[in-house]
Structures are given as C-alpha cells and as structure tokens.
C-alpha cells in the first residue's frame, strides 16, 4: 500500500551520506545543521497540516505539505516526503484518503525525529 511502504527506508542513507560527505569536505557539521533546520520547521508544518485539515482549509494544507515535502527531502525522509507529496497533490482534489494521510504523517514525523535524534546522538 502507498500508505505503508515498508520497502522504502525511513531515512534514505544516501542523502545522509551526502550530507556527511559534504560536511567532511567543509569541515563543518552539515548533517547536524540540516537536521536542526528540519527540527525547527517540520513539527510546525505537520501541526499546520492537522489544523488546516480540521479547519477545512485545503489551500493551507497544500502549502504546508509543499514545504514539508522540501524539508523531508533534505533529511532523506523518503516516506514522509512521499506522504507530503500525496497530501499536496490531493489537498485541492476530492480524495478521501486525506484524513488518514495526515494522521500517518504525524506518526511518521515522530519516527523520523526519533531516528534522526538517535543517529545524531550516535555520531557525536
């Protein structure tokens, strides 16, 4: 099922390796800073998704989903990105999966954050 793509990784190791490699090139904690930027924005975006869903504000949903797509892409959160993409494209249409997607999105974010935190904890 699209909502449950277990075959897709939670975090794309390729993206994370790219960030680490870039950090190594520059001698800076690129991965950490990208994750920090993600932490600053993603939770608010997911909260905005739920709010907009309950308020029936589909265009606000599409906007939040669009930015979430970008944010999740940066940390390689493949499934979250896919969810956000689906929400963005369906927000303005007439599709009944939205409620479930938003819910899954909320849970998925928590999983991503936990995993990122675990990873950063491990690397420092």
């Amino acid at each position: 099922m699209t909502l449950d793509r277990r075959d897709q990784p939670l975090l794309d190791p390729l993206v994370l390796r790219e960030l680490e490699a870039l950090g190594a090139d520059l001698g800076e904690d690129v991965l950490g800073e990208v994750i920090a930027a993600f932490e600053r924005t993603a939770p608010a975006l997911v909260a905005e998704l739920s709010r907009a869903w309950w308020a029936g504000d589909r265009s606000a949903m599409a906007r939040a989903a669009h930015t979430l797509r970008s944010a999740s892409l940066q940390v390689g959160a493949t499934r979250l990105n896919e969810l956000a993409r689906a929400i963005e494209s369906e927000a303005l249409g007439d599709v009944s999966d939205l409620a479930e997607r938003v819910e899954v999105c909320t849970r998925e974010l928590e999983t991503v954050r936990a995993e990122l935190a675990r990873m950063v904890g491990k690397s420092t």
Partner: protein
Amino acid sequence: MTAIPDSAPGLALVVDDDAAARTRARFELRAAGFEVIEAADGLAAIEAVRSRHPDLVLLDVQMPGIDGFETCRRIRSEPQGMEISILMVTSSEDVAAVEQSFEAGATDFATKPIQWSLLRHRALFLARVGGAFRRLHRTLLGLADSERRLSDAQRLAHVGNWQWLVEANQMLWSDEVRRIVGVETEPHSPTFEALLAAVHPEDRAAVEKTLQAAVSGQTGWDLEHRVQCGQQVRFVHHQGTVDIDPLTGERRVLGTLQDVSERRANEEKIRKLAFYDPLTGLPNRRMLHDRLGRTLRFAREHGRSVALMFVDIDHFKWVNDSMGHAAGDRLLSEVAQRLVNSLRLGDDIFRAGMDSSSFLSRVGGDEFVVTLLASDGPELAGKVARRILSMLQRPLSIGGKEIAISASIGIALFPDDAQSPDTLLRHADVAMYNAKAGGRNRYQFYTESLSKSADRALVIQAGLQRALRDEAFTLHYQPQVATRSGRITRFESLIRWEIPGKGLVPPGEFINIAEETGLILPIGEWVLATACRDCKAWQRQGLSGVGVAVNVSPVQLRRPEMAGLVASTLEQTGLEPHLLELELTETALLQHTKEVAATLDQLKKMGVRLALDDFGTGYASLSYLKKIPFDALKIDREFIRDLATDPGDRAIVSAIVAIAKSFGLAVVAEGVETALHERLVREEGCDAMQGYRLGMPTPLAGALKLGGLLGTTLGGEPARPRDPASRGR
C-alpha cells in the same frame, strides 16, 4: 587567456521558505566556493539583491507571499538586475513552471530534488559566465577594446555577439554567431528575421515574444533556447540589452549567444541515470510516475483505457537469501528480459489492437509494473498477464542450479478503477496482494470489493506477509510471579507487530486474519522457535528454571505435525521440555478430535507443560479438565478486574481455584493490576499471578532485567536470601 575567469565565483543568494533546504543549499554553494546569503521569502530576496548585489540567485518557485516568478520579475527590473544569473527551482511534476520561469526572466531552472553534483557546476558556470557577459557588454558598449581580442575571447567561450540598430534595421553578427546558427561558410545577410529563423521552430514564438518585449520596453533578456543548425540542434544561452543612442535617440540592441550544447548533453546523460534502473536498464519508479501521468492524460483525451499491472516475483527473497545477491540480480535481469519478450509488439495478442502500446518499468526490488494503453484494456491485460505467467514459468538456470519462478500480478484499470496515477498504482498493489493470498502464480483484477470490504483485512494480510519476510515481528515477555515466593516462574511470550510510522498493530486485529489465511502456521512456528531460543538464553544468564509460555492457536493445534514441530524445536534450541508451557484456549479444544487428543498426549509425554488459557470466558466445560492432562489453569482477567467490588466475581474465583486444586492444577490469575488485586488473589489461594502490577510485557532485554529485579523485591512475601533476618523464619 580564457574568457571565463577563474576568480572566486562570488556571492550567491538562496531563496526558499524551507529552512532545511536553505541550509543544504548554503553548504553546497559554499563548497563550490560561493559566499552565501539567505532569504526566506520573495520580499526579503529583493531586499538582499538591492543591498548585496549577488551574482547568482537560487530561487524556489513556490513560497508564501510573492512567489518565485514574481520575485524573479522584480529582481530583473532592479538596476543591474539583468546581470544576475537567476536559477529557478521548480518541483519536478510541474512542467508549466519551466516555461513560466523563463517568461519571468530566469536564466535557468533546476528541479527538486536538486541534483547537487550537477547544480554546483551549473551555478559556478552561470556565475562566471555572468561575469564574462558583463565584461563583454561593457566592451561592446563602445569602450575601448580591439576586435581581435574580442573575437578570441568569443571563440574560447563559444560566445558570439550581435548588434541590431532597430531604426536603421542594420544588423551585425560576429563569426561565432554565424558558427552557432550554422551559416559560417555561406554568404549570408544578417537580419533580425534571419536570427529568429535560426531558432528551433518550437522555441521560436517564445524567443520572438521575449525579444520584441525587450526591444519595445527597452529592457534586457536572458534565456536559454534551442537553435536549429542544419540537422543539428544546439542549445544556446541568449542574453542581451537594449540601449538608446543619446544623440539620435535610436535604439541599439546588443545580444550575446553562447553555445551550451555540451553542458546540456551532460545534463541529459545524468538525467538518464536518474530515470533508469541500472541493473535491468528498465525505466525506474520515477520515470513511471512521470510517464503514467502523461499516459492517463492521453487516454482521457482519446477515450482509451489503461491497464496497470503490478508484477511481483514470488518468493524472491528466498532466492536472494539462499543463493546470494548476485544470483538475485541475475534472476531479476532474466525476469526483466522475459517481461520485455512478453510485451513484444507485433505478434498475435497485440495484433488485435494495433493502437495499443506498453511500458515496462522496475519499481522496486522484485516489483515490475507494466502499463498498457489500449482501446480494450481489460481484455488485453488478461492476455498479457497469462502470457507473462507462462513465460516466467519456464525453468531458469542460475549458478548451475535450475530454479522455478512464478509471479503474482495485480491489475487495475483506468478509467474504471481509478483516475489518478497514485490510486491506480495502489489498486494494482492491492490486487497483487490478493493474487498472492490466492496462492501466487496468478493474476487478479482489482475490484471495488477488494478495496472496500476486504481492504483492511487485505492490508493486514499483505503486511503480515511482508512482516514475516522482513522479520518484523518481535516477542515481548510478561512475567508470571509465584504468589508465595515472589519469584518469577515463567514469562509469557506475546507477539508484537510494529509497522514503522503506524505504530503497533493490536494482536486482536491480526491474529484472526493470520488464522483465516493460514499465515498463523509460519508465524506460530517463528514464535515457538524464538521463545524457546530466548528461554534457553535466559537460563544461561542466571534465570535458570524460569520457563516460557507460548500461545498456541486452534489452527496450529489441528495440524498433525504440531507435536513433531515442538519436539524438533526443543531439540534445535536445546531447551528442556518442562520449561516450555503451551497455552491453549477453550476454543482450541472445542474440536477435541482424536487427532488433537493424540497431539496433546504426545506433548505431555515429551514433558511439555499444558495450560488452559482465559479460563471462564469460553465454554468453561469441566470435562476438558478431566480429559486433558493440563498442568495449569489461567483465570481470565475479567474476573480479576472487579474482584474487590463484585462479590460474584470473588465467588467465581474461589470456585475456580477449588476446582483446579481438586484436579491438581496450578492456578494463575491474569490481569493483576493493583496492590489490592494482588492481596485478594493471594487470599484466594492462586499459585501465581500475571499483570501490570508484576510487570508489563517488555522486550527480552527488559524481561531479563526485570527477572533479576523481581526475584528479590516484588510480590508479597519474597524470599530474601541476602537478608539475614529472613533466615531464622
């Protein structure tokens, strides 16, 4: 000397409303040598352009407030705004955005997710070329420089320039311009019309519109387009300005043309890599997505149907695991080849509909998707599916071994089943899982009922199959504590299934489905083996004598091989039989056939313990207790919950304990959650208890820790071997 200086690339401005994306861009551009500033929206970007004069702007299209297009237009209308290279970032599925970007005056565009390895070079190139253009323009504007030096510089940079005096309609082309548009050798009279005529027919209208607008508005332009040079198509970067002769008031248009075909060709190569699967050479998931959207639009406009077929290789993981990845890869390549052969056009099944076409892609490990465009989708899909199944069935030799393969195919149809690519894929996926559940090596059309009534069950079933394959189950252990000693007697193993992102699936929700589909057999086998192995492990880690309880489903119990399975598991794990307790429910015993009796008898003879689970909730027939050699009886939590307040429950518990004792059974109280429960249960004479009061179900590591702890601290009157005061009692 080259026309493109190797100086520092300069200042880059990153404009994006997503902080994480800005952060990434900042580091990437810094790695390319840029100094980087950021803006979170369009207005801030324009402010930064005014105050900092960046050489390059990386501009996200979709932002709250004024969007990227508008921001781009406004930057261009700033003084010196024409000199900035603006790279627009669009989302990949928004084709119109590319055109809009150029209309708004963008120099170039990139799609998200950004291929940074590529974009870094392009950004450098744009910033440097931007500088070269600026110098060229100044040179052309009548400042002193010799013809020869200019011409050399142009040749090296593949940059040509042209000049057009609008009022006099006089035009001059440099040699490089003549080379780029392909009129190098022939005599040629340069005109504005001739320049437009050289533009690729598909780009001509847009280029003409932009140039006309620039001329009449006395602004500049900056675009990339194609040039038709004989049979060859070239990509050029075309920039220019319009200025007014202060003496005559006549307009002079200055343009530069740079051949960027080579760069484009490299980009195309990289794009190919991004859209194709390197193993099989087939288009990948990304390409399918792109293609499917367009196929559906075409089908809608032309009244065609589309059949989407999800082809999943049966038991692929087995090949990969047992024969190695190289063998798995060979298998996939072979499957890809057979699929290609199955879809060859021009033979009988495709002959009926000459207007049909097919598209094959590999979307995941062992998953392929066939897209069929036809006037009669369902019929063709059925034929193709049958052919694929028969072609895959031919034996296959890998590493000297002959193996048989098969596939399960799910088919969803447009417009009947779904309207969007996503839904179509999902429905085909559901149908595929149904084909798997139906016994594999078959195809299944999607029907609404699959999705509606059976959806939940199907999803769970599909998930269970994957969970088994991916080993996504875990066992948690909940302690049973002896009421008298306070020691743990055994742990009950409880299966847990967690779907990442969706949390735990309650056993009540999936066990039924596992039983209906027979999946309970492999799952039960896994549980038994894991529990025995874990129990053996904690024997070694100091919890010797602490047993394990395993729940057995009625479906398992009816299998004639059940006793044999238990025996071989015990043998393999080296666990002593008396440490294993099998918990049976009353339901399991409803069909108390001769076979079941024989199984229980064999288990008993092996020395395995048997417990009657959830006692009191089912038929509670005392005859079981007489017929079956149970060792223990577990009182259902329902009777424990209100033990303190409901005298009826208390009476029942007293009766159960009395009966159990008369049969010589140990009594275990379930659902002991409070101190009061614990006290009452002890008063009633239960031998052991289980519940949150004594310990939540936890993973093995937690259980081991709890085991160390509980032996001395919890549960009524624990034995305290280290406490000298207790020795005298």
